[in-house]
Every structure is written in structure tokens, then in C-alpha cells.
């Protein structure tokens, strides 16, 4: 579900001067032509490292993202919602699988990535560190968090790395129903009974601040960002994504009679830009570094699932098994 494009730690720009200039030129020419990079191609270290980190975090976000909505799987009201939510959460696990495979083509094993997730070493999208208190919360997530993810994913699908593009193609196709389902749920609640409307409004009020954090802090153009944009690793700035999201979805939220907890939120008709109260980036930093309401629970659940499944994996492992990275 989460679209990536954000890396939550800053990377040291490995000296490009160390890279073979001829190979680097060929590599950059290929990207400029619009051709994709495939796993066996030569690539600069910075490109490889950045992509592993980005795709890996995207994968973790999918796996962890399955947990807040999964909170409501057993309680979905009615057959239609029950089936849809089961399928949606399943898709998230599936997307995690696709993305881990894509990251593996760059040289990191899935075991290693899963270890880094549960140890807290690798990050995932911050929004999943918040609790889904009610059914309406799960509907908010299904609609608007997915919408945010799709903004990122559509941007990244035009990126330069072949395996990531292939994974995103499949993911975008499957996401189509997620967004529609989420919107459908919110429409029903917002236009439904008094209790339903109140439940939905409370959820919106609760989730709007984390949603404003979703695309990350404003990113000033640094030398670092410039190279990553040149290599089509970073496809759009955080600000651009956020603006796109607000433009597409705030009107849809308002048309349902739902209020957003930000009196400054408006579209400046002259600039075409949305204005809003600057989100609390200190809170964002706190939560992403482990101090959010659900961080501990999310990782504990993943850890326990791994631990309790260990006997299964151990039993099935053949003694002569060999590791081979996925080809594409």
C-alpha cells in the first residue's frame, strides 16, 4: 500500500568520483533514453544502496500496513465488506512479497530484510504506527492512506529500475479496487445514520494529522536529491506529492460533509497551491524513531509471527538448498 519515495534516514553521498566514468556515462545515457536498468547491469553504488533501501522500506510498509486494517478483518460488517477487506489485506501481504523480491535482485536477501524490520533497524511508513480505533478508522485507511500510496506509486512506476517497475505495475493494477472499496465504505458511513456519520467524522479528525505527515517533510533540493532525480530513483518531491494528494482528495472529503481539523486548509486560487497548517514534524520524528502509539505492537506482532512460524520453515528446509536471487 505505501508508495515509497521517502527514505527516512539521510544517506551519505558515496563519492561518485570513485565510480568508473565510462560505465557511469553509459548508465546515465540509458536512463536518459528512458530505458530501464536491469539487475545484471553495472550501476553506481549509490544507486544500488538507495534503491535497496527504498524498495525494502516500501515492502516493510506493506507488511506492517496489513496490521491496522487487519484489526477489523474479523469484524467487518456484512458479507460484502468482509470479503473485500480480507482480499485487500491479503493484497498488502502480496505486495510485500513482490517488493521484497524486487529488492532482492539488488543483492540483499529476504531473511536479512525481515531481520532488519523486526529488529527496528529498517523503517516503514510512519502512518501505520497509529491505532485503528473503530471500523471507520479502517475505512479512512483503506481510502485515503491508499490514495496517498497510489500518488507515490504512480510516480515511482516511471522510475528507472526494471524489477521495481514490474512489481509496481502489478501493484497498481491490484490497488484499483482498494481505492474504490475504501471510498465506497467512507461514502456509506458519511451519508449514513447519525452514528455512522459521527464515527466517520471522528476517524477523519483523528487521522488527518498523520495523513499530513505521510509524504514527509518539505524537501529542499540538495545535490543528493538532484542526482537521485537524474537517475529516476526519486521521481517527485514530497511537496509535489502532497499537493497532488490534497488537490485530488480534499474536495472529495468535503463533498461528503466531512470536516478536516485544519482551519487554514484551502486552495489558493491564484497560485493553485493548497495552503495548510504546517504539520508537527517533531511528532513525526518522535514516532518514526520508535515513540508512536503502536510501534512496539507492530514489531512485536511481526516478531512473534516469525518466531512461531520457525518450526514450520525449519521442517521444510532441504539440507542442500541454495540461495539464488530472483532473476527479474
Amino acid at each position, binding site marked *: 500500500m505505501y508508495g515509497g519515495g521517502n527514505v527516512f534516514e539521510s544517506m551519505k553521498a558515496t563519492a561518485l568520483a570513485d565510480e568508473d566514468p565510462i560505465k557511469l556515462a553509459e548508465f546515465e545515457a540509458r536512463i536518459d533514453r528512458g530505458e530501464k536498468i536491469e539487475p545484471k547491469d553495472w550501476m553506481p553504488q549509490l544507486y544500488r544502496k538507495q534503491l535497496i533501501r527504498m524498495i525494502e522500506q516500501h515492502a516493510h510498509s506493506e507488511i506492517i500496513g496489513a496490521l491496522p486494517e487487519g484489526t477489523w*478483518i474479523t469484524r467487518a460488517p456484512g458479507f460484502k465488506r468482509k*470479503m473485500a477487506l480480507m482480499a485487500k*489485506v*491479503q493484497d498488502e501481504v502480496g505486495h510485500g512479497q513482490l517488493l521484497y523480491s524486487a529488492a532482492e535482485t539488488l543483492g540483499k536477501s529476504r531473511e536479512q530484510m525481515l531481520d532488519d524490520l523486526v529488529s527496528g533497524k529498517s523503517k516503514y511508513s510512519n502512518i501505520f504506527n497509529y491505532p485503528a480505533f473503530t471500523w471507520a478508522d479502517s475505512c479512512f485507511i483503506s481510502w485515503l492512506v491508499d490514495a496517498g500510496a497510489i500518488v507515490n506509486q504512480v510516480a515511482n512506476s516511471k522510475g528507472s529500475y526494471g524489477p521495481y517497475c514490474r512489481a509496481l505495475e502489478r501493484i497498481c493494477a491490484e490497488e484499483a479496487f482498494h481505492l474504490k472499496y475504501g471510498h465506497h465504505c467512507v461514502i456509506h458511513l458519511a451519508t449514513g445514520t447519525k452514528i455512522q456519520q459521527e464515527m466517520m467524522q471522528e476517524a477523519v479528525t483523528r487521522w488527518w494529522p498523520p495523513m499530513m505527515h505521510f509524504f514527509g517533510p518539505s524537501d529542499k533540493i540538495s545535490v543528493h536529491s538532484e542526482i537521485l532525480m537524474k537517475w529516476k530513483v526519486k521521481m517527485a518531491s514530497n511537496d509535489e506529492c502532497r499537493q497532488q494528494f490534497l488537490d485530488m482528495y480534499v474536495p472529495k472529503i468535503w463533498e461528503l460533509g466531512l470536516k478536516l481539523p485544519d482551519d487554514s486548509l484551502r486552495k489558493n486560487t491564484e497560485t493553485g497551491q493548497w495552503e495548510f497548517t504546517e504539520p508537527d514534524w517533531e511528532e513525526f520524528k518522535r514516532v518514526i524513531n520508535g515513540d508512536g502509539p503502536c510501534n512496539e505492537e507492530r514489531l512485536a506482532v511481526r516478531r512473534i*509471527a516469525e518466531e*512461531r512460524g520457525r518450526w514450520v520453515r525449519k521442517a521444510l528446509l532441504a539440507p542442500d538448498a541454495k540461495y539464488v536471487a530472483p532473476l527479474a
Partner: protein
Amino acid sequence: MNTEAIKDLLYKIADDQLILGHRNSEWTGFGPLLEEDIAFSSMAQDKVGQSWQFYKILNELGESEPDTLAFMRNAEQFHNCQLTELPNGEYDFSLIRHFLFDTAELIRFNMLSESSYEPIALLSKKIKGEVKYHTMHANIWIKQLGSATEESISRLQKSLDYAMPYALGIFEASKFEATLKQDGVFEGEVVLKTTWLAQVAGILEQTELTMPSIDQVQPLVGGRYGNHTDHLQPLLDEMSEVFQVDPSADW
């Protein structure tokens, strides 16, 4: 056509699938391996989806809407066998239950494909393929884990011994066995059980697991007529928690 007899048959099938599908959906996100997590979730969806189809036939026969049937009845009104309502435990129990139950389901749907009652025959023919995959999955897992390590074998054996009395409850006789057979609607639980025993034993022979001696196992019955374990009502309360906030609302 004896409508009461047919409803009896439909209810037990639909309730089994709903409750077991619901239980299996609890594994989504918590499975032992990503790919297996995905597979298990698909099978849970299949079950819930199948139960929906059976409730629709019941609705056509004059019973309430599917959502009402699923989300508004209490435990004593449910006709699932007790096996399906037991908590998931660890993966060994869930796999054993999946193996024992789905083996019976496939045989049941193969039998029902010949039913004189057309709606059931059509639906059974349609979903047979789905259930076939479920048994393929179960057989492969039981065969592999049942011959792998000391731990996997002993876990499966314990679960098998624990589950067997409940599994025999699948075949609890209906009040309408004779009618259903006479009318050509369904050959009956006795035939189903016999076929099932042979198939289960056949798979277990290919493992290090021991088939329990059936004549020494006391079947745990009652589910078909509303006698359930303590696990069912909490399951139903949870399942219907949001729906019952307002059953007349459109969710």
C-alpha cells in the same frame, strides 16, 4: 421436495464454511511464510464466499437475507460442527483442521454435484474446483510436514489426536438423512464419512503420522443442532460487533 430437509442441509454447509472461513481469515498477516499467508487467506475468502452463495439459496427458500443469517443469529441457532469454531491454536492445528475438513468438503461437493435439487447441484459443480485446490494444498502440507522433523511430526500428531473427535462431528446425522437420500438430494453422512476415512488414511500413510483408531474415538457431536463449545458465542459477538451497531444501516 422436502423443503425442511433441504434447508437443514444448506444451513449446515453454509454455517461450516462461514465459521471456518472466519477462523482461517484470522491468520492473514500472521502466517509462517509470506507466500503461505497469501494462500491461506485466499482459501479463507473462498470459504466465506461459498457460504454467501449457500445463504443466498436459503434466502430464496424463504429464509432471511444472507447478512442477517450470518450476523444476527446466536450460537444456539448455528448448525456448524464444533470443529470449525475451535480457536486457531498454532499452525499445526489449523493445518490439521484444514486437512480434515476440506477433504470432507470436496467429497461432499462431488456427491452434491449429482443432487436432484438443482440449485445445490449447480453450485457444487461450480465450486468443486476451488475446493480441489484446498485439498491439494492440505495434502501437500500434511505430507511434507508429516514426514519432516521430529517437531513437525509430533505437533501434527498431537493436533490430529485432538481434532479427530471433533472431525467426526462433521458427519453428525441429520434428522432428514432418509428423506434426503430418498429424494436423491444427498447420499448422506454415512457414505461421506466412509469415503473420507479412506482418503484421510491414504494421505496419512504417506507420512510418519498415525491415523487414530476410529472405533476408539468418541465423536463430539451436537453442533448440527445448536450445541456448541464456549468458543462460538464470542466468535459471533466479535464477527457481528460492527454490524449490530445498527443492523438496519447500510455499511
